[in-house]
């Protein structure tokens, strides 16, 4: 064998061995098996003495009610800066039309989208995890059409990506909407209605809708779960839709006989105060609801109805 051939063979063998070794070192323990849940951001804006913690408006035009309460709170420009992405979380839980009052009123959602757009939001996402077929819920609630026309990107539940959530106070194994964790600002827009287990479903309860798998376990300890979710998700703004009130057979309703005209909208930066207002609309003293008490004890807000400015 010639020296050249010998050198070539040795070099080839050395190169292959080196390549295998380098590859092995590159991949060696490169990844751990356990994926860690990303933290849930805090979407609140700094508190201000200039503005009330919450405001409520009555009137037959839901969009006008929204404009008035947001204006009193400092205008949407206080909450959404130019270039930010906003996620609006209405209740689109059910295959119901607006008159049945099981979902957030589409005009309320659409007006919020317009205000965010006017404030310069780069992107406004409207989404929820529906209980019925999401295609039907988003269409029949009127929210897909109204919010889409107002300039929002409407994402129906089946197109959402879910990721593990860092909700340590509740059992592990809850998944939340990934879009939510990526948003700069979050506006929670519940509808005020009756609920068979927690008596009323309001703003903090509306967070059930960002939880995918595992949500059905939260009902075992509903009041504690609501308070835990309220502690985990700190929205920029909560907007309570009491345009129509579902007073019986919640949270799904169905009969128009269960619906009462509310003609009111409230908004605020204190989620507990907003829930207290919603409870009052349905005739419940805030202190009578265990989840509001728990949330107060945890310092998530104060259920002092006097702090609400009526406009």
């Amino acid at each position, binding site marked *: *064998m010639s020296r050249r051939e010998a050198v070539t*063979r040795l070099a080839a063998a050395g190169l292959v061995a080196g390549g295998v*070794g380098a590859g092995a070192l590159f991949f*060696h323990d490169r*990844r751990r*098996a356990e994926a860690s849940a990303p933290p849930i951001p805090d979407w609140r804006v700094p508190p201000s003495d200039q503005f009330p913690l919450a405001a409520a408006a009555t009137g037959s035009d839901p969009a006008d009610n929204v404009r008035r309460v947001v204006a009193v709170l400092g205008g949407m420009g206080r909450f959404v800066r130019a270039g930010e992405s906003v996620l609006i979380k209405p209740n689109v839980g059910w295959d119901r039309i607006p008159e049945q009052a099981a979902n957030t009123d589409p005009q309320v959602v659409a007006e919020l989208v317009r205000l965010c757009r006017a404030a310069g939001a780069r992107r406004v996402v409207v989404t929820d995890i529906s209980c019925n077929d999401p295609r039907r819920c988003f269409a029949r609630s009127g929210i897909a059409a109204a919010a889409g026309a107002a300039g929002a990107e409407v994402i129906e539940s089946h197109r959402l990506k879910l990721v*593990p959530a860092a909700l340590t106070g509740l059992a592990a194994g809850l998944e939340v909407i990934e879009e939510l964790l990526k948003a700069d600002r979050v506006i929670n827009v519940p509808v005020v209605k009756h609920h068979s287990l927690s008596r009323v479903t309001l703003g903090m309860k509306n967070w059930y809708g960002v939880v995918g798998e595992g949500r059905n376990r939260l009902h075992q300890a509903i009041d504690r779960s609501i308070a835990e979710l309220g502690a985990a998700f700190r929205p920029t703004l909560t907007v309570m839709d009491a345009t129509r009130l579902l007073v019986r057979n919640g949270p799904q309703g169905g009969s128009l006989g269960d619906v009462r005209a509310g003609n009111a909208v409230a908004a605020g930066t204190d989620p507990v105060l907003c829930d207290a207002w919603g409870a009052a609309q349905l005739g419940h003293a805030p202190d009578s609801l265990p989840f509001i008490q728990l949330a107060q004890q945890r310092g998530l807000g104060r259920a002092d109805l006097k702090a609400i400015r009526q406009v």
Partner: protein
Amino acid sequence: MSWTRRIRVVYQAFFLVLFLWLLARLAAGDPRDLPFTAFFHLDPLAAVGVTGAAGTLPGPLIWGVALIVLTILFGRVFCGWVCPLGTLQHLVSRLLSPRSRRESLRVNRYRRWYALKTYILVALLVGAAAASLQTGLLDPLSLLARGLASGVWPMLPGGKPVPGGWLAGGLLLAVLVASRFIPRLFCRAFCPLGALLGIFARFALFRIRRAGEGCSTCSLCTFACQGADEPLGEHRVAECHVCLNCTDSCKDGVIRYRFLAPAAPAPAKPDLSRRYLLGSGLGALVAAPLLQAAGGGRGAARAELIRPPGALAEPEFLQRCIKCSLCQQACPTGALHPAIGQAGVEGFWTPVLVPRRGWCEFACTRCGEVCPTGAIAELTAARKTGYDGAPPVRIGTAFVDWGRCLPWAKSTPCIVCEEMCPTSPKAIWLEEVVEPDRHGRPVRLQRPRVDPALCVGCGICEHRCPVGEMAAIRVSSVGETRDPLNRMVVSVPG
């Protein structure tokens, strides 16, 4: 017999005995820290397969590099000198097939379809990278260990039956019997590990070479050629097991195993078809995602899919399990069994815990200690039991069947499940009731109830339940630590 062959036989015997002895010690529950996983840690097929599937090379599997370097130096010496499955086939072909010289020549001729093993390798590796790790089905070390654990050990005195074990035992038997007709048929035509080593053997520095002068072309070299690599013709170094039967039998002394022996000219017909290579890769690209999506495995948690304690979440687990059965062999209660249908097509032969067969011993962490790939994470007893203060490692939850349970349904006192429950406080508690029997006489009964916040799913309750074939308390996988979505109650953290 020359000294080279004698040394080789000593090596083969040593590694075969070592392999069997380690399995035997594992089954006997030897408390010493013996190198139970050594063979598998050296297995580059496991290393490459797991890396392809999981995107990471778990810890000690990096030893596979040593075997590749050894192959680059000496050729496929692993196949001829170390591999216990190769040795067993070698033994079968030698003991069971007295052959004429003509027949020996015929069975040891190279055949083009022996390239099948390389297509199998490509399909397995592409499949692993695409979706599903299945190298363990044909990895010779897994195949042998599994065949022994599921097929042979149950036959030994004191052995516990393994339902469905005949499949694994049968495959091993088929491999061995095939060697009676064509020596080392599995190595030559099917072994993906041999094919992988063959790729590196092409660069081997030591190799067989027939030095032209003085060869009488008597073909004696081919009579006992284990790899069917044609030492007399254009020697196929990728097929050669380096058994050195050829150098030994060459009476002209022209065949030698030498450092930097000149490479043989390329054979007239290439041994691999590009079309088939592409075909096997593309086939795996279709088949592997199909297995994953439609094979019924990973998608949702399954009641009867109870994995060993410390097992990773199902996708991660399936990316690492090489179906070697070491956990099964190590399980002191015989609780771990090769899955037949419980884990879907993809999870065929992966370990599942069958509580009626055995239970997960509360403080035992044996399966994780011997898992060569980390599919079952190694736990400490304190971690597993929760004595370290964190929640214990759960593998499922027990449920009482009120229709079968003696105190619940038959007015018959019994507390066996509660008595066996190892957690502290016990997950199974007893509700005292006084109930009339059929004659109206009051009977004091203690009805077992399960606290899901405390139950770890160990299954000793189900195992010891006196209600025959189907226990009156049964474990299903809900609540298992490894799957945060497979839960039942909200109040149990961890």
